[in-house]
């Protein structure tokens, strides 16, 4: 079953063509990587999938049904969770409060209705552990976690609240090698849970480690769409790095 399908989608901002003729698919338990340099149209693509902007050409299908997402809320309700680079967390609040923010479980009746703190703490710890992160103290402010760990909490939260499709906006961009590894493992774990993942990145090495499909964007158009079998890492890297442009650059930079 194709969870999300984009066919020949385009988007204009005034007289600027941000995206044209982009097609991609995400299936259950699959990772589709969207690769591209700065200004390639990756952000526009995310905004369309997460309901922040509406496409003005082509077709967006969810579970095979043609749709136009009108708001991030609608996207969320239909199971599409987006984890942005600048994460939606409150740095001074403890991890467990952040995890359940906006959907706090409660117990008790009438004026004694209260948050189920025990369950919240326990669930946060368990959900993170299930994703492979052992956070000893869920009581610490989330601001004290590293960028990678915060990314992990955001992903684990999306998984816990029943997302079917996970859209990740450059989750490894600002991270070191080890941290990136942790996040990539988590992405793979989410895939194994049966989620479809849209993984946006400009790092072909990270993409190739986890991806099933690869979509290459350049200046708003799709320059390539591959399955894992049809492309090697070297070729992906070369295409991503600019391909022929890079050869030209190398030639230019060569000492006379």
């Amino acid at each position, binding site marked *: 079953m194709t969870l999300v399908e984009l066919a020949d989608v385009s988007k204009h901002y005034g007289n600027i063509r941000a995206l044209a003729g982009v097609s991609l698919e995400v299936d259950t338990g699959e990772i589709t990587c969207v690769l591209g340099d700065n200004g390639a149209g990756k952000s526009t693509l995310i905004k369309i999938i997460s309901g922040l902007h509406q496409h003005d050409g082509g077709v967006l299908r969810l579970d095979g049904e043609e749709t136009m997402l009108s708001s991030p809320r609608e996207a969320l309700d239909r199971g599409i969770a987006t984890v942005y680079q600048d994460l939606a967390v*409150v740095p*001074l609040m403890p991890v467990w409060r952040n995890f*359940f*923010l*906006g959907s706090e479980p409660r117990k008790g009746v009438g004026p004694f209705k*209260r*948050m189920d703190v025990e369950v919240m703490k326990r669930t946060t710890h368990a959900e993170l552990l299930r994703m492979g992160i*052992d956070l000893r103290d869920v009581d610490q402010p989330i601001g*004290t976690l590293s960028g990678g760990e915060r990314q992990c909490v955001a992903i684990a939260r999306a998984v816990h609240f029943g997302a079917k499709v996970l859209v990740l906006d450059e989750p490894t961009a600002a991270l070191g090698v080890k941290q990136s590894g942790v996040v990539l493992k988590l992405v793979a*774990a989410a895939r194994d849970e049966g989620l479809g993942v849209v993984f946006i990145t400009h790092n072909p090495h990270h993409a190739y480690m986890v991806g099933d499909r690869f979509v290459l964007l350049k200046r708003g158009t799709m320059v390539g769409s591959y399955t894992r079998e049809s492309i090697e890492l070297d070729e992906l890297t070369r295409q991503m790095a600019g391909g022929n442009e890079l050869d030209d650059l190398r030639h230019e930079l060569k000492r006379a």
Partner: protein
Amino acid sequence: MSATTVSSDERLLETSPLRKLLGRPELGSVVGAIAVFVFFALVADGFLRASSLSTVLYASSTIGIMAVPVALLMIGGEFDLSAGVLVTSSALVSSMFSYQMTANTWVGVGVSLLVTLAIGAFNGIMLTRTKLPSFIITLGTFLMLTGMNLGFTKLIDGTVSTKSIADMEGFSSAQDVFASTLTIGDVDFKITILWWLGLVALASWILLRTRAGNWIFAVGGNQDAARAVGVPVTKTKIGLYMGVAFGAWISGQHLLFSYDVVQSGEGVGNELIYIIAAVIGGCLITGGYGSAVGSAVGAFIFGMTSKGIVFAEWNPDWFKFFLGAMLLLATLLNAWVRKRAEATK
């Protein structure tokens, strides 16, 4: 589930209980309170007498009743400069409605509650609609209320104070609720102390155990993130302003029923005292951090300092100096705590 490899970090040290204690928002104020207490116990004769303690607690409670909702509002990331004069407005409405309509004083008390809550809601709605800083919005309400307090009182009563309502029906029962004195042993305690402690308990319960508390921390800590995950930011903020209004109503009724008449020019400047008590108690001026207990300790420091200076027979002018020094120290400590909390951001 395949990836269950647990990544534990050998660099993570066990947190000692001391370090956990250092992370509490109230810490600075508690240390300060002990220091102030010891200081006045040494220099002021009679500071340790039970009757002195009762006086100190009374002074603390009159500030504390307002410091609690103001602290909640500050944790929610906003200010209320109109809080001081709102207390007077609340008392005036109660008194004048009762007198002019010659009704039972309780009717005036009820009308006052509605009017005061409406003013609080006005602050909140203006803030969330216009998206202007709360400093500007409530500065506007502060000035308008100051003018209205004087203007309406002169218009209706002809002078700057209200008429006595002491002989009206319901006065003594209202006085029992808002301004009575309880005698425990041979020491008299004002009932405002009970209101104060009740409010601290209620606010702590809301902050630490309810969903609304989670939202208050979130709207103050990162409003956009809170909105993104579905927290009703507008409702939370309006609710916080109405909480301040509720505190102002209690304080206003206390004012009215302990003095019987209300001076319409009172209350100006008190808003800063409430904010200072909240800040000394560990509330961050930028929102997202603080506690109700802290604000109570802040108010207690206030009460000790103001009365301690009297017991020590010093010139009361020094009160403001102590306050300023206290505020600076507390803010420095808070800034340090916050830096630790956000250390690796």
